[in-house]
């Protein structure tokens, strides 16, 4: 019987998965995940695709807010920049999607770094205000710069094509989104095992002593804004391919709030938490819809009320998590896992 978790090398001690069981579980999970398109109805697959995109975006925001400690409300704006730059590159310059997505990420990253410059002077609530201002500036530019963004009417995104193979169905889009999402998760996980990621966390915890330890605050804060915006920009580009038509209204400020909710409920400073949060917040309205439709027979008036209660429930959930589990679902999961790890002899 296993009586503990013992490591014999530093490489094993620093690996992402603690045990072989965890690795096998993940392999099984991924196998099941990639067979989903074969038997899942289109509507459900569409929701799963949205979850995949949300995972990429939530990790992006968590890198900046959860790991580096820089609160950002500019998330929706960054997403819009990713979506519109990918749209512009695809429609006006006729670039293929596999160039559009990384380029959109890079454009968003450079904009994110520009927005990040004030973070060297201001922090906390004031930075939140500055990034919120950035959101409205971006929104204004997108509405007015019609030659590039199509203005209020927006852009129609062409179907992404790989040679003659068109990624036109939800199932094909699923593969594209989840391949990118898995790469995004892996990259982020690795980042926080090495120098750059640890420097981010050091800045969050103690900026002054990080500087004394030799961390260049300016460089790493901007780098964090850059990486975070790259992720969010890629998520934006994928939203564009999924929605097929994008307009300034696709990215209201509530999207930024939703993403903040994801990382708070999932767990600030946790990659796994970003995933849980993204799944949870994306499923929340769908769950509510399911409940209301199933109850509509017995309580017909409930349908209208519960639909309107989405925001209310979202807000209450954030508050409940802040009070009872400020470290989010990831911490809860960690506790449960640890409890069962050596069951029944935990000592």
């Amino acid at each position, binding site marked *: 019987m296993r009586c503990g978790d013992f490591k014999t090398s*530093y*490489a094993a*001690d*620093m690996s992402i998965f603690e045990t072989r069981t965890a690795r096998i579980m993940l392999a099984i999970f991924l196998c099941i995940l990639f067979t989903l398109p074969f038997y899942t109805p289109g509507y459900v697959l569409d929701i799963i695709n949205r979850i995949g995109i949300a995972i990429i975006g939530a990790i992006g925001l968590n890198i900046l807010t959860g790991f580096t400690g820089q609160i950002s409300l500019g998330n929706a704006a960054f997403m819009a920049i990713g979506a519109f730059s990918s749209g512009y590159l695809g429609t006006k310059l006729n670039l293929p999607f596999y160039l559009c997505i990384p380029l959109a990420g890079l454009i968003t990253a450079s904009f994110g770094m520009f927005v990040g410059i004030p973070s060297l002077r201001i922090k906390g609530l004031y930075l939140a205000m500055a990034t919120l201002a950035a959101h409205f500036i971006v929104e204004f530019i997108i509405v007015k710069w019609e030659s590039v963004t199509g203005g209020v009417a927006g852009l129609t995104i062409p179907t992404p094509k790989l040679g003659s193979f068109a990624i036109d169905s939800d199932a094909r889009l699923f593969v594209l989104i989840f391949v990118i999402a898995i790469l995004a998760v892996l*990259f*982020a996980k*690795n*980042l926080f*095992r*090495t*120098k*750059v*990621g*640890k*420097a981010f*966390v*050091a800045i*969050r*915890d*103690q900026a*002054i*002593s*990080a*500087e*004394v*330890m*030799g*961390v*260049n605050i300016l460089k790493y804060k901007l*780098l964090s804004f850059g*990486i975070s915006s790259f992720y969010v920009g890629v998520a934006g580009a994928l939203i564009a391919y999924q929605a097929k038509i994008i307009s300034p209204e696709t990215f209201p400020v509530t999207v930024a709030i939703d993403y903040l909710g994801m990382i708070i409920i999932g767990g600030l*400073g946790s990659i796994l938490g970003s995933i849980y949060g993204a799944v949870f917040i994306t499923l929340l309205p769908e769950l509510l819809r399911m409940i209301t439709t199933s109850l509509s027979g017995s309580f017909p008036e409930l349908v209208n009320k519960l639909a309107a209660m989405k925001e209310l429930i979202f807000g209450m959930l954030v508050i409940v998590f802040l009070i009872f589990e400020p470290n989010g679902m990831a911490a809860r999961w960690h506790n449960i896992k640890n409890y069962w790890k050596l069951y029944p002899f935990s000592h």
Partner: protein
Amino acid sequence: MAQLSCSDIQLNFGGVRALSGVSFEVQQGEIFAIIGPNGAGKSSMLNCISGLYHPQQGKVLYEDQDVTRLPPYERTKRGMARSFQNIALFKGMSVIDNLMIGRHLHQHSGLITGGLYYGPAQAEEIRHREYCEEIIEFLEIQSIRKSIVGTLAYGFQKRVELARALALEPKLLLLDEPMAGMNLEETEDMVRFILDTNEARGITIIMIEHDMGVVMDISNSVCVLDFGKKIAGGTPEQVQQDPNVIKAYLGDEDLEGL
């Protein structure tokens, strides 16, 4: 030649003069203590040396180079490390990660190599992990290496802060009240670690400390500050005899009118 020499340091905060005309030299390999009553300017002096404050006048020479205007991380690159009076660890990180931040300047993996991990970044991580483990063993904190620092007891946190400073591979170590708030046993441990650091690793130590027993026992030379001025300097014995020091600590001997 002195490893560090401060000459005529003057530091003002607005109209308040925190330090005026403080000069001293620290020799390679010694334990140098800065003492003085509360508000004497000891921490300000240490901040001038480590670069958090920049004095309005005077010069800080480190290994014959003028470092007065350099930012903190430049001085860290040149071999200075410090601990803080109010523990300034990375509270959300584990002990080992705190030490790994100390290896920041010695590591070279960037964004891309780090994100790919396998290959050079992993090899580098393991190499530096080994270095940190040596320090962990040296300071006897093996049992807490994976604990989150914010959850540790005060005495351990102080020790982790020393460990983090040592992970920088410093030549000069600045300690701001390393024994503050510790009980006798913890103080004895800390003194042992400081002496070992000094002797086995050959690291010069500048230390602010209020525990006079410790200061007089382990330091080679002492500098006494009072109201931002240096009032005495020399070996512990010389300082103990100095009338100015006695006056600053105990008050005037012949208080008239009493």
